[in-house]
């Protein structure tokens, strides 16, 4: 239950928090564009975005609605592919991958944390965390062991057999974080992770992220809240489908 006792104050001021030395490049995006067709209209969601993300980075992606933030996140999460430009994930070209290859990348390399948690309502916490491992084809015994371990690491060792409706909002999001961690992904991609939580619980989740970062994970948080972005070590701001600024959080 260590995480629940952490507060922003306990984390220290942003500038004084540790910054881990960045590792090799995980994500390399170069001049990526994305077009959507809505009837006769063509929407330029991304108009040439270039971005490198390295292992052990803690990145926040910010921007007002319509800035292309969601499109970029879908692209980073391999839920969508670019219209043009280059996207390499750990050196593999994502553009041109078929559905199954994208599914495999998502399964093995990316851990998703959603604003609305997206837990399966009829499965208990353990089953929810096991889900990516099922798709990865692991045996039941190994699956359960790893899911237990992940749940314990987010402080929910005593809630394994609770269904989502028997858990608080913060606990649900921690189950989702455990699910994101369980496949030991290259990046954890969080979309407004505190958007559906009260501020105290939100702080707890961000404290959990801090710990994950310090433990060597690569985090990308998409948010429109400055408070949330403050936890990151680097902030990328988007506007009208372009990167407006990309600087370390000071």
């Amino acid at each position, binding site marked *: 239950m260590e995480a629940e006792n952490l507060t922003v104050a306990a984390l220290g001021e942003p500038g004084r928090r540790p910054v881990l030395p960045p590792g090799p490049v995980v994500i390399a995006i170069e001049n990526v564009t994305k077009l959507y067709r809505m009837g006769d209209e063509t929407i330029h969601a991304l108009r040439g975005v270039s971005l490198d993300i390295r292992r052990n980075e803690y990145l926040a992606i910010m921007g007002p609605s319509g800035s292309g933030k969601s499109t970029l996140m*879908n692209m980073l*999460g391999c*839920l*969508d592919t670019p219209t043009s430009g280059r996207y390499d994930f750990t050196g593999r070209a994502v553009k041109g991958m078929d*559905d*199954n290859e994208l*599914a*495999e990348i*998502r*399964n*093995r390399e990316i851990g*998703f944390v*959603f604003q609305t948690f*997206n837990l*399966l309502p*009829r*499965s208990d916490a353990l089953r929810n965390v096991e*889900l*990516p491992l*099922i*798709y*990865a*084809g*692991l*045996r039941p015994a190994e699956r359960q062991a790893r899911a237990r371990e992940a749940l314990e690491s987010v402080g929910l060792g005593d809630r394994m057999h609770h269904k989502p409706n028997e858990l608080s909002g913060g606990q649900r999001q921690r189950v989702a974080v455990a*699910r994101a961690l369980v*496949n030991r992904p290259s990046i954890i991609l969080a979309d407004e992770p505190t958007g559906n939580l009260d501020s105290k619980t939100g702080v707890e989740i961000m404290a959990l992220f801090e710990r994950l970062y310090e433990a060597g994970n690569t985090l990308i948080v998409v948010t429109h809240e400055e408070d949330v972005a403050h936890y990151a070590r680097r902030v990328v701001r988007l506007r009208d489908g372009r990167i407006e600024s990309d600087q370390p959080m000071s």
Partner: protein
Amino acid sequence: MNELVESFRIAFAEIRAHKLRSALTALGVIIGIVAVTLMGTAINGIGIGFQRSLAMLGDDVMYVNKWPWHNVDDWWNYVNRPPIVPEDAEKLNRIIADTPGSQLDVAVFVNARSTTVKVGGNSVSGVYTFGTTAEYGRILTADFKEGRLFSETESRAARPVCVLGYDVANALFPGRSALDATVLVQGQPYRVIGVLVHQGAFLGLFSFDNQTIIPLGAYAKHFGTRDGNGELQVKIRDKNRLGEAREELTGAMRRVRGQLPADPDNFSINEQQAFKAQLDPITNGIAIGGLFITGLALFVGAIGIMNITFVSVKERTKEIGTRKALGARRRTILLQFLIESVSICLVGGLVGLAITGGLCLAVSLAMPSLPVVFSIGLVAVGLLVSTLTGILAGFAPAVGASRLDPVVALRYE
């Protein structure tokens, strides 16, 4: 493998979570499967009943009649044929005796009519009474419950003795032996010398238990034998050589009748096969028509499944998006929804088969004479049909689910 087990787990969790909905959906399949399997049972039953009936006629007996057993359009070609008379049997038997290596065994003359049989105040009407000779014992397929058939001497002497069918004896002498009692056959006294065992009905129409056998002499005296209803029953030696026997019988009968080579036969040779030829189109018609109609019930059930799977996919769009984000492939999603619809169909199929099995058991207990057979084959067919229904009904919605764009599905509220 893992994926399959997981899909079944999810499917059953979903079915449990929507008990009422699943039950109502399965109901359509249950009704369909019950209809189809009951139809199958009925068609089986008709076939088996038919075989049993044919066995009663004896599969090694040919019948020589004035008329063929099938319907004829040109009745004028038959109506002036001479009737079959007892002398035909005597002549035919002489020819058989003179033919070395004959395929024919013996010919017996039989003439029959409907009578009323009485004893005291009890009477049974519509009894099929036939006069024949002692040689009939070689053709009779039924055993005697008590007593015997009349002897050669009794037959020749036209003794007033009779053998009663099971039902006739039971009706006239409930709970006691009929032997040596005297019954009135159409007003004439006959002494009962034998009672046949229970045989059942031919095609459910003509009861072999509602009959009386009397010596031909006595029959001739009381009813006459030249009414055109006479027939020869000819037992053959080898039922695997029916064709040869038929050829021989035709030739022998033409000699009996003294026909010239150019004359057409003035008699008809009938076999039980003729019934089969007549009944086959009927059973086939029932099978095709019945299965089509019952298939419609199943089709309606399948539409129900398809509908509910579409609803289920729609409801769980966000869940599908989440699963895809976590690495579920198209195939995994497809399989999940297919297995769900197949599971509902299989559960419905099992319940349907249980209902059909129960109905068959109840019918066979209530009416043991009906040939109701609930076979393993029917269970296999029932399960196969339910599985196919599930696959066909679930396919379109499952493909739709598998092709959902994860971005769109995740945004769905």
